[in-house]
């Protein structure tokens, strides 16, 4: 099926969503997604940041869709034409959504563990306004411990439901859901039951904001001061293959997370033993430094240089070794 997004055509399989078609194209035309998670069934459609305009429904029925649609849950039709960043309507709507997402968010980034790898930060930076027009008290909640390793800080939550889907689909029985409704609804474990499940730690990885944080890492360090290293171990859990990212500060492993792709989604879910208990270099087989996008704050002053120093430019051996950086420089 052929779909055109912002004037760029791509061939995709039937049943692909607009968002995934855009991800095949890549680049700036990929709509942001706060609630959609490709590894979780039925996720998406809730945050509305990925709204796009369908200016032509399909080859058969060329009528445009009357409203903006959530690209993560709308499947493509043959000949569909979609506008994302080329439509002022979409830009305006997205700006509104970002503002709505932020009005009840505490913006406590300076003390938040997620800062630096927070999707809401990126979203606000790219699509939001400088100042908020909201002049009222923000909703607040008390912090809740979900088990002894995870802390829930509902005040920061944007209710994307990703953790609920993890509890539904990755762990074997759910004691994790939503209580109440509207802007006072909250993630809950029902009567504060601790999640005792081998995969419960994955709720931390899927959380786009700092609402679910790792208590073994809490306040230990800022992520941009740590070095990400890929490693694996021979995990004896049936559903975990032990491929992780270790976050080092000096010699010390501060935390362990699953490996995340360019859209911040984990590649494979990992078990709690890997995540919380194996915090010694001796537990792991190191594969090498993790590539961090130069756009991310985590990459600052790390393995790759954005602009190779002049000496590199004169030495053919070093030019060859830093090929990627040179390519990036010309692209920029």
């Amino acid at each position: 099926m052929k779909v055109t997004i912002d004037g760029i055509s791509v061939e995709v399989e039937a049943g692909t969503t607009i968002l995934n078609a855009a991800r095949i194209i890549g680049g700036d035309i990929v709509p942001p997604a706060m609630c959609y998670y490709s590894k979780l069934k039925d996720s998406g459609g809730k945050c509305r940041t990925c709204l796009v305009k369908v200016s032509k429904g399909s080859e058969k029925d060329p009528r445009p869709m009357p409203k903006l649609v959530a690209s993560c849950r709308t499947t493509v039709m043959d000949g569909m034409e979609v506008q994302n960043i080329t439509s002022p309507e979409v830009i305006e709507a997205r700006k509104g959504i970002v503002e709505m997402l932020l009005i009840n968010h505490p913006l406590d980034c300076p003390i938040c563990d997620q800062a630096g790898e927070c999707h809401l930060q990126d979203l606000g930076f790219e699509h939001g306004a400088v100042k908020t027009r909201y002049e009222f008290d923000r909703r607040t909640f008390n912090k809740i411990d979900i088990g002894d390793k995870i802390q829930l800080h509902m005040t920061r939550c944007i209710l994307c439901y990703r953790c609920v889907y993890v509890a539904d689909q990755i762990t074997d029985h759910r004691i994790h859901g939503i209580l109440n409704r509207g802007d006072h609804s909250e993630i809950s474990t029902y009567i504060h039951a601790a999640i005792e499940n081998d995969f419960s730690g994955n709720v931390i990885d899927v959380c786009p904001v700092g609402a679910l944080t790792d208590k073994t890492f809490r306040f230990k360090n800022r992520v941009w001061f740590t070095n990400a290293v890929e490693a694996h171990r021979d995990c004896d859990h049936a559903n975990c293959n032990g491929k992780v990212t270790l976050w080092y500060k000096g010699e010390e492993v501060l935390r362990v997370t699953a490996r995340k792709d360019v859209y911040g989604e984990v590649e494979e879910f990992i078990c709690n033993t890997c995540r919380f208990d194996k915090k010694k270099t001796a537990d792991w087989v190191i594969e090498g430094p993790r590539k961090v996008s130069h756009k991310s704050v985590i990459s600052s002053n790390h393995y790759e240089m954005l602009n190779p120093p002049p000496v590199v430019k004169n030495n053919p051996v070093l030019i060859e070794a830093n090929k990627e950086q040179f390519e990036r420089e010309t692209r920029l």
Partner: protein
Amino acid sequence: MARKLLLEHINVPGIDTYEVYRSKGGYAAVEKALKTLSPDEVVEEVKKSGLRGRGGAGFPTGMKWGFLAKPEGVARYLVCNADESEPGTFKDRYLMTYLPHLLIEGMIIGSYALGAKVSYIYVRGEMMPQIRILEKAIAEAKSAGFLGKNILGTGYDLELYVQPGGGAYICGEETALLESLEGKRGNPRIKPPFPAIAGVWGCPTVVNNVESIAAVVPIINEGGEEYAKVGVGRSTGTKLISAGGNIVKPGVYEIDLGLPVEEFLYSDEYCGGIANGKRLKAVVAGGSSVPILPANLFLKTINNEPRLMSYESLSEGGFVSGTMLGSGGFIAFDEDQCIVRNTWNFTRFYHHESCGQCSPCREGTGWMEKVLHRLEHGHGSLSDMDLLVDVSKKIEGNTICPLGDAAAWPVASAIRHFRDEFEWHVTHASEAVSRNYGLAHYADPLPKPEPAAQ
């Protein structure tokens, strides 16, 4: 006096019992449909009648039935949406309280037409008496052989269940209703797939309002074409209007669609005029979620033609100068009512009832409520009106279900038509807490439209 199709026998004592209802010609439509018509013919009759959904959106019921997917070996369901919670609307509760058998008769015909073996009536949790009334009526109908196995010897089986809801407004949205019916949290589903393809338990489902289902009974009794003769244009048949607010005789009225609004509001047969000799200031014509109109624009369209109680006439002028028939929750405001306070009250309702699933509605309704609360209590600023319009625009159309639109429209329309009252609340803040803005110019005759230059 117009003929009543639904409420014909409403004043007969004991009409809520099977014997009396039957003696007044009840269940004749079931006999006619099951014995002489095929399911497709029933659907055809409803299509011919032009019946439009009475729950608010006004989608043609026959077309909705026609869309139902009919895969082999998969059960189909008819679900009656009795989760009536729109502020200003109380017609379904009235119908269920006094004429429960009319709804059950309509359910049997509807289920037969759609080929459903099991049907549900999803009743709002607060309506406990109505749930008991319906269950009693179902038991009576069952013992009379109109429900259960082999109805009237035609070989058609039907089980009818009443399901109490939890009392959430959002469960009146059809996909949220189905989620709730399945025993889950009542969050609206993301469409597509529509319920006609995958509804309750993934099976094709039709969800209809109480009044739409009840209206099937006169359609079958009289024939679709006969029914279509009542009403005007594409608004056929009769409609129950829950009239409330500052009128002399509040209550549920059955009107022929196409009745002039002036007659409905002022004639003694219906509302009987504005109470206490006051003057009309504004009207919400179809339940809290439709745009509010000032008196002059409500009685006359922008072209100075009299407005009629019909889907088309009420929406004439679109969102600029029109409103919608909605669910028929007619609320009249006299000159002593404060539109700002009323808008705040409506928004407070939507803030409370937003399910919290998608962000524009979850955050936006609360924001609008807080701004309106500030305005009402004299702490607003002149920029608040523009802020409200902007926030309502950001909500409208960007949400999963229509609750976002329903929350945005009353605010946007109140500011469009009553902006000077909102501004007065800012400029005369101390006065605004002690007295009302009054009627002002809201009932003045509309200016004559100037003929276009030749």
